C-alpha cells in the first residue's frame, strides 16, 4: 500500500484522492482524522496530518472546526480534471514506449486498445 519511492504524505494524499474518486468518501462526508489514519496505516501522526493538509491546500478537503475534515463539493470533478491532465504522461507515454520496444505498430496498438475497451 505504501512504498519507499516517494514521500509518505504524498502517497497518503493520493490514496484519499482515490477513495474520493471511487466513491468511498462522497462529497460533504468526513474523511478519517489524522490519528485514525496514523493508527490504521501505522505511520507518524505528523505525516498523516501533512497528507490531509495537502488536500486542504488544493481545495479537495475542508476543515470544520472541532469536527474534522470533509470532502468539498466539486472535489470529484476537480480530481478527475487534474488526473486527466496527467493521464497522457503517466499512462499513455509508457504504453507507447513499451509498444515501440516490442515492435508493435501504432495501428496495432490502437486496435489492441479498442479490443480491450470492448471486452
Amino acid at each position, binding site marked *: 500500500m505504501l512504498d*519507499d519511492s516517494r514521500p509518505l504524505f504524498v502517497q497518503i494524499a493520493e490514496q484519499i484522492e482515490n477513495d474520493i474518486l471511487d466513491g468511498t468518501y462522497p462529497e460533504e462526508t468526513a474523511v478519517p482524522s489524522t*490519528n485514525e489514519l496514523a493508527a490504521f496505516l501505522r505511520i507518524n501522526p505528523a505525516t498523516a496530518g501533512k497528507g490531509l493538509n495537502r488536500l486542504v491546500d488544493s481545495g479537495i478537503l475542508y476543515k470544520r472546526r472541532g469536527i474534522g475534515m470533509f470532502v468539498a463539493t466539486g472535489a470529484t470533478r476537480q480530481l478527475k480534471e487534474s488526473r486527466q491532465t496527467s493521464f497522457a504522461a503517466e499512462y499513455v507515454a509508457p504504453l507507447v514506449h513499451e509498444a515501440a520496444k516490442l515492435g508493435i505498430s501504432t495501428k496495432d496498438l490502437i486496435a489492441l486498445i479498442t479490443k480491450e475497451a470492448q471486452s
Partner: protein
Amino acid sequence: MTAISTRDLAKTYKDVRAVDGVTIDLEPGRIYGLLGRNGAGKTTLMQLLTGQIFATKGAMTVFGENPVENAEILAQTCFIQESQKYPDTFRARDVLTVAASVYPNWDDSFAGRLVDDFRLPTKRLIKKLSRGQLSAIGIIIGLASRAPLTFFDEPYLGLDAVARQIFYDRLLSDFAEYPRTVVLSTHHIDEAANLLEHVVVLDEGRVLLDSDTEELRGHAIQISGRAADVDAFVANREVIAQERMGGLASATLIANEGDQDAAQRADLSVSPVSLQNLIVHLTTDAQRSTVTA
C-alpha cells in the same frame, strides 16, 4: 523551547571518542529515530542526556536546562535501557510498583492493559523471565510512564514480530492522545521507519545524518541496466554504492529532481531505496572510503 539541544557534545573514554562533537536540536512532541551501527555512540549520547555519565566537553540542555543532577528534569525523563538490571528478589509487579512511584504521569490502567497485551507473567521472579519478557517490562514502563521525554534504547531484544507490532501500535495510539518526545534507538529501521518523524544517524560518534524522514524517502534511488548505460548515467551524479555483474550494473545514488524519469528514458530500471538500505550504504566502511576518495 527544544526538548533536547546539544552543542559540540563529546564523551571520551581513554582513547575512544564514543561521542565526538554532536550538535543536535530535537523539538518537543515528536518521535525521533536515533540510528547507527553498534558502537556509533547512540547509548552513550542517551546516557549523557539522562545524566548517567558526564560529558568530556560540550554543552547540552533538556527542556532548556542542564539535566545533570537536575531532579526536576530527570523526573520528566524515562530511559529504557537495553539491558536494565533489577534486584534478584523482584517480581515483574514489584518493578511496575516502583515505576509507578517514580514517574509522575504513570497510568496504572494503561500499564495493566500492556501487561495483558504482552502476556507478562507479573508474579514470576524477574530472574526467571525470558529475554523477551524482560524487554516487555521495559516497554510497558516506557509507555505507561508517559514521561515528556522517553528514550527507548533498542527496546525489543528477544521480542517476536507480533510483540514488536504491538509496541508500535500502542506507542502510536498513546502518542496521539498524549503527545510527547520519544527517542527510539533501533536496528529494525525498516519496521520503525514510518513511525519516525525525524532521524539522527550517528557514525563513529559523529552526526552523519540529521533529517526529516519524509525528506529521506525518495532521497536515493537504485538504477540498474547495461553497464555502459549505468556508467553514463552516474557520471556527474552522487553515487553511494555501485555493483557490477558481467555486462550489467546497478548503482545507488542521491536522486535529484527528474532523475527518476531521466533514468527511465535511458532504459534503466529504477527502484526505491528504503531508509534502512540508505543508512546501510552510508555507514558501510568500504563505501565511505570510496565516497570521500
